[in-house]
Structures are given as structure tokens and as C-alpha cells.
């Protein structure tokens, strides 16, 4: 296992899991990603990403309720784990630091 590093895409997926806990299953996540990024998001990529997150222990999953359009099949609902939350916070702190540096520079320039 390559440790618990978060890829950019994984980070987005994870953020959506946190942001929309009621709708955190693969199809809805793919659609939400598509809506936010404006890019075409393929289901297989999201599903693979989720399964990687699961393997890294960043999300937990349990089977949710069944719906008619899914032919009576249940969906796998994801929720963020403690490790996942930590990884997200870490990623955010890295970014904040970098942005702070950028802002200082631009202030100095002007």
C-alpha cells in the first residue's frame, strides 16, 4: 500500500462524501463531481476511487436502502472515517500554507 496520500481526484470525492452525507453513493457522487467541475466524470473512475479510499481506510461503507430504478438493489453508502477527516485536514493545511505564501508575495509585489 502506498500509504494514505490523497490524490487530487480522491480528495474531491472525499469532500463530496463529507459535503453530501445523505447522497454519498457512487452514482450521486459522480453526478455532483460533474456538476462542480463541469467535466465529464465517468462512473468507473469514481467507483475505483471510492474503493481505493475504502482500502486506505479513509472512508467507511455500509449498504443503504433499495430503490426501484436500481432494480430493487441496495446502494453502498459511504461515510468519512476519522483517518479520512485527518487526511482532508492535512491536505487543506498544506494548501492554506501555500496560498498564504502566494498572497504574501503578491502583496510584496504591489
Amino acid at each position, binding site marked *: 500500500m502506498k500509504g494514505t496520500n490523497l490524490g487530487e481526484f480522491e480528495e474531491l470525492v472525499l469532500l463530496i462524501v463529507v459535503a453530501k452525507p445523505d447522497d454519498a*453513493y*457512487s*452514482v450521486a457522487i459522480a453526478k455532483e463531481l460533474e456538476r462542480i467541475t463541469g467535466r465529464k466524470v*465517468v*462512473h*468507473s473512475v469514481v*467507483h*475505483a476511487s471510492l*474503493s481505493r479510499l475504502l482500502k486506505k481506510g479513509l472512508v467507511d461503507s455500509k*449498504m443503504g436502502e*433499495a*430503490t426501484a*430504478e*436500481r*432494480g430493487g*438493489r*441496495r*446502494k*453502498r453508502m459511504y461515510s468519512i472515517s476519522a483517518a479520512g477527516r485527518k487526511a482532508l485536514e492535512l491536505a487543506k493545511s498544506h494548501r492554506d500554507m501555500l496560498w498564504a505564501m502566494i498572497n504574501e508575495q503578491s502583496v510584496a509585489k504591489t
Partner: protein
Amino acid sequence: MKESANPPKWANRFLEWYCKPELLEDLQGAFYEYYHERITAGFYNKAKWMFILDVFMHFRPYTINIKSQNSNTMLLGHFKVSFRNIRKQKLSTILNTVGLGSGLACFILIFLWVNKELNYDTFHEKGDRIYRISNTFKSESESFSQAPSGPALGAQLDDIFSEIEESARVGHTSERVFVNNEYFFESGLRLVDHNFLRIFDFKLLAGNRNTALNDPQSIILTESLAKKYFGDKNPIGESLEIDGIELTVTGLMEVPPETSQIQFEALIPLMIVKQLWDFESIDEEWGGGSFLTYLLLSEGTDPDQLGHDITAFIGEKLALEGWAERGMSYEYFLQPLKSIHLNSNLRYDTPNGDMRIVLIFIAVAIVILLLACINYVNLATANAINRSKEVGIRKVIGAERRQLVLQYLVESFLIVSISVIIAISLVGLVLPSFQEITGYEHFELLTIRNLIYFLSLIVLLTIMAGLLPALLISKVAAIKVIKGNLKSGSQYSLLRKALVVTQFTATVVLLISILVMNDQIAFIENKDLGMKTDGVINIDFHGHDEVRDQVDVLRQRVSQLPQVNHASFAYNSYPVFGVSNSTTDVETGDGTMITSSIYTLRVDQDFSNALGLELIAGRFFSRDFPSDTTESIVINEACIQNFGWKDVEDAIGKKFGREPYLRKVIGVVRDFNIEGLYKKIEPVRILPVSNDYYYTSLIVNADLSNPKAVYDQLESVWKEIIPAVPFDASFMNEDLKNQYTIVYNFQSIFMVFSVISIVIGCLGLFGLATANTNRRIREVGIRKVLGASVYEILTMINKDFLYLIIISGIVASPVAYLLMEEWLDIFTYHVSFDWFFILYALLGALILTIITVSIKAYKTALANPAHVLKDE
């Protein structure tokens, strides 16, 4: 609708087979959710497609359920190694998949089309028992077969012969329909017997199958026509008028399937003709007639025997009317409904397909597939030398041959699968234009049945293309490889050469075919038809009385238009497709009168000028000779030989008909192709129309330097004089050309397929040349050191392929000749096979080869010999 409510079963099963059980429910649910969403949005095809795509896209290591460690790991290993090999050999993978993929795309397209052509009229439940009764008419001077029979057959036969359960007639008619205060000309109307819908299973959407056609004043509309007349309103119970007779809509039908030989836009009970055409005796006429008669036979009837019985029975009836003593007779035969589309070529039939064209395309499809396979085999065996080390090592480590064969088959399977996916996407891409060219609107690409075919195609191709290389490569003895004394190069070269010859042969055949087709098409376009069709506009008024009342006014007004040269009224609409024939008495060369059936045109005095007919003897009808209308006749040149007259001059004064309607020939016109080049020129008699009430159309010969302006002027004159009849005009040139659409389309499809297969051939050649030059790279180096020039080296490498072309040419010529003779035979007037085409084609193949081979060889020849020879 029901069927598409569920995603493709096989894809589902595949998913269930490979997916880990703990992931299955969620994944399958997700696919269903997408599927459901797309269906709801109305994208049926897309939903199906995407479902399949999803299933394959999720076929990934983390989803695959490894059931039994042993065999699956092994297979998985094979897949892994195959993937690596495919990635490693990028060039040959691309050549292989593109070649195979485009070849397969052609194959699939042809498959779709052939599938349509071969499945005409298969949707009738009782189809196996439905026959059409057609006949061969014989007279003293001729004999021809035609589709329509006398109307009495359809009316009476089922009562007379117990083996005929039902009989129904179908008549074509075009009428002016008056509905919602608007006039429409409709040519898709069919007059049918009341039991028509009991025999044929055309889909009725509203109305009663058994009673909808009972009242003569009723009409069943197809959806498209109903929409045109009544919009979205329910058409049942609405009324419309045909020629002043009011009809009530009693039914609504689906438009007949494309693969139906019987096409219509509306059905009208046949009995209406008693009012419409004053045809009271319709059920009593055994001869003549324009109706197609269909019979539903009871189980186990022998159609040939029945044909004989009917011939005998009707022969007696007609003998009573004096037919036998005039030497005329009918011989009836029964055609199975399903065979009519491809195997019937009769006069006065609806447009048909042609079995020969279907066969040519099947041959082309097989050739293309074969070419693509040969490519694969060629490239694979050419690479064998690189792989032999791998095979040797594997064998030393302990691989069995069986495993090696499996390994290579898996590799082929992967490449074939990729190719099939490429092919299906290509087909999806070009399908819209293919539909336009073939005239079929609905091709079903992704039906369950087709997908099964495609899967079996993958398996078949894997075996066809993959087995031979697999067996050859795995044969290598390990010891030879390890010792390093494997003779490089010459392995399997005979096999490869044989394959290349096959490929070249196909290429040369296709090149020759293209040349012949272009030649024939140029011939069609430039053939002198014996009449002047440029600048002729035909205004068809379908014989409406409003026009007939105004013939003189119209003639005068139209002639006055500055660009108009001549205006002529005629009984037919020009060009005439299906000139009617009738029987008459004719004076032969030795002075006796015989009875003959002859094509008849009824026209006015301006006709020969309007169509630019050339008089080779005598004169045409003239207003200066009022007696022309009752005493004169003009004939074409073909009559002279047919009736045994001496020459053109001898024809003048010959007698036609019998007292009191005797006419004498006053003029002979040069032969003209009134129907285009499919039909042979036959004897034609031209009669003057005695009464304005026979005219159905107006032929205008005009200076068409500005066709739009002339057309508009004619239209405005027309609208002013006869507003109640729609202006239905067309350019004769275009109409004539339109009948060749099928030929043009055939040629363009054939052209595209040929180019693709030639490209495939070149790809294979390129791959082969690459392998070949790589093998000889050191030889080339040494030759260069010893002083060979680049030109000499190119010649050396090309030489290998040149004599293969010569052999191909020898094999290809007779094949191309036979194939093209068959195709040319479709045309009554055609070019002869030009042997020079073989030369051209060979030259073309030669140039292609040299270019293809040299691309690679040139690079090798330029290389610095020091680099090549260094590592020895």
C-alpha cells in the same frame, strides 16, 4: 418498448460472472440507475450502449472475482503477458487493430444491409402460404412475363379452386385528395380487396381488421398520411374526397415495414373503382389488367400444379372470347411472396432488389474479412522470429506447447476484441450516411441477436487469425533457439507469400471492378437516348378534368412564354416508367395480319418536337391533316425488324388494327429509350390522342439557361388558369437520373469498401515489409559497405514483392472478369469488359506496392552501416 425496459442480458450476466459478490449489488444497482435515467430521457439506444460500456469499463483488477486460484490465475497471467506484448509492439498492434477494425466495420455494414435484403416480407404470419400469381403473355410475335393479372382472377379464383383459401388484389393508383379545403396528389394509394388485412399482417393501430375495408367508401390511412391531413387529431371517422367521392376514415395503420414488398400510404377498398373508373365489369375481366393478385393457399398445396390448373382453366375462358384463334395466351405461375423481392424481374412490377447484387456484396464482405485475417496472420508470423527466443526460454522453464498456444490465442483474442470494438464504433459513426445511401432508415445494430453474432465473430476470428500463428510460433524447438542456430528469415516465407498473393489478388480484383463500374456509369451518363431530355419539364396533372377543359388555353399561354420552345400534351407522364402495352393487328412483311402486343404511347402533334425525336421516314402527326387522329400511326425503328418489313421506307403505309379502326403508318422515328437504360428498346406505336380528355400531362420543352425562372413562370401561369389542381412538375433529366440512384449508390458503397480493403492490404504489406527489412538490416549494411547505392537496395527489397504482383494479376483477371460480367448484365445496355483495365489495375497495385514497401526500405537503406554492423 417492453424489450428495451431491460438492459442487455448478456452484459448483465458477464457482470455477474466477473464481479466480486460484495461489490456486485452496488455496481449493478448503479448501472441500472443510469440505465433507467437514460431510458426515461428517451435515449433507448444510448442507454443500452452505455450499460454495456459500463460493464466493460468496470472490468478491472479490483472488481474481478478470483474464484479458483489455479486456472484463473493462469488465464489472468496470459492476459497480463498479452497486454504487455501488445503494448510493446505498438506498430504492429496499431496495424493489426486498425486493419482488422476497418475490415470488420465493412463486414458489419454489409451484414446489416444483406440482412435487410434477405428478410423481405418475413413478418406475415401466413407468409409461407402467400403467393403472387403472375403470368407470361404470348402472342404470335412476342412473349414476356409480367406481374399483374386480369382482375377476375382475384375475384373468382378462391371460389373455383378449393386449395385457394383467400385471394386479394392490390392496385396502384394516384389520386387527388381533397381534405380540409386543400388538394394533395397522392401516389401511394392502394386499391385492395376487403380481405387484404386477413391475408397480410400489416399492423392496424385503430379500426377493425375484418370490417374496415367492407364499405367501398372507406379508407385506411397510415400514420404519416393521417398526420399530414389531420395533425394530431384522431382521424377515425373523419372524411376526405377522392375525385369527388367522399370516403370515411375507418382505420389507422403503421407505415409498412421497410422490408415489405407491398408499400402503401393508404388503403382503399377496390370496389370503389366501379364509381371511380366506371369499371363495372371488374370482377369479370380475365385478360389485361393492372392488379397484382395474391393468393393464400391451404397447407400442402403444390404451387406449380396450381399454376398449371389455373392456366388451363383460364385458357378455356379466354378461348371463348377468341383469344386462341388470334394466337394469344397466358401462362400463369405462382411466386412465393418472400422470394419476390430478390428473385423476380417482371414487367409492371414494383421496384425490386436483385439477388446478384446481394451475392456480390456477400462476396465483397467475405473478401474483406479474409484480407483482414490474412494481414493478422502475416504480421504475426513475421514477428515470430522475434518471439522465438521468448518461446525457447518458456519451453526451457517448462511450458507445455498447449499453454503456449493458449497464450497466443489469448493475445489474438485481445486484439480481435479491440478490433471489434473499433469496428462497432466506426459503424455507429457512418451509419447515418449508410442509411442515406442504402435507402433503409432503420438499421438495428445492437440487438441481442447481433451482439451474439459479434461475439461469435470474435471467437471465429480469434481461431481463424490466431490459431495458425499460435501453432507455428509454439512449434519452435527450444534447443535451436538456445544454441542460436535458428535460421533467420526464411521461416514460413512460403506461407506468407501465398497470403500476400491472395491479398494482392483481391486488391487487383477490386481495382478492376472500380474501373469497370466507372466506365459503365460514364456510359449511362453519356448514352444517346434518342431523344432530347435536357430542358424538358413534365407537368403531371394526373388527368384532372379541370385541366382537360383548359387544354387549348394552357397550350397557348405556355407556348407564349419567351423561353418555351414547344408544349405538348400526352397521355403518359414523361419519362414513362412502365409504358402500357396493348394488343392490335399488324401487317407483316408478307402482307398477312398478325395479332401482337405492342407498347403504346398516346400523344398530340407537338410530341416529336417536345422530345426532339428524329424522324427517319415520313412525317409526324400534324394539325394540317385532321384525318391523322383516326387514320394515322407513327412507329419506332424497332418495329421494322419485329414485323419483318424490308426497310424504313417499306414501313410507310403498313396497316395497324382492323376495320373500322384501321390505321396506316405515316412516319418512323429513330429508336428512343423512353424508360432509361435498364429496359431494352421494344417496338412502340405512337397514336394521336383523339380527344382532350385522354391527356394526363403537359410536356414543356424550354430553354433552361435559368431553370428556376422558367419553372416559376410555368407555375404562375398554371395557378392562374387552374388553381384547383396542384402544380406537379419535374425535370425529365432528373427523373431519368433518379432511376440510377441505386447504381450510383452501389458504386459509391463498393468504392468505399474497396478503398478500405486496399488500405488494409497496404497496411499488411507495410507490416510485412517492416519485418522483412528488419531481418535484412545487416545484409543491407554489408551491401552498402561493399558499395551498393540506395537505389540498388530499394530495388532489391522491392523485387521480392514484384513477382507476387504478377502472379496475383494472373489469378485476379478471370475472377474480375466473371464478377463484372455478372454486374454489367443487370443493364440492358452496357459497356463491354475492357481488358486494358487489368493492365491499369496491375499498374496501380504495382505503384501502391512500391510506395508502401519503399517507405520502410528507404529508411533502412539510408541508415549508416556502421551502426547496424557494430554489434556483431
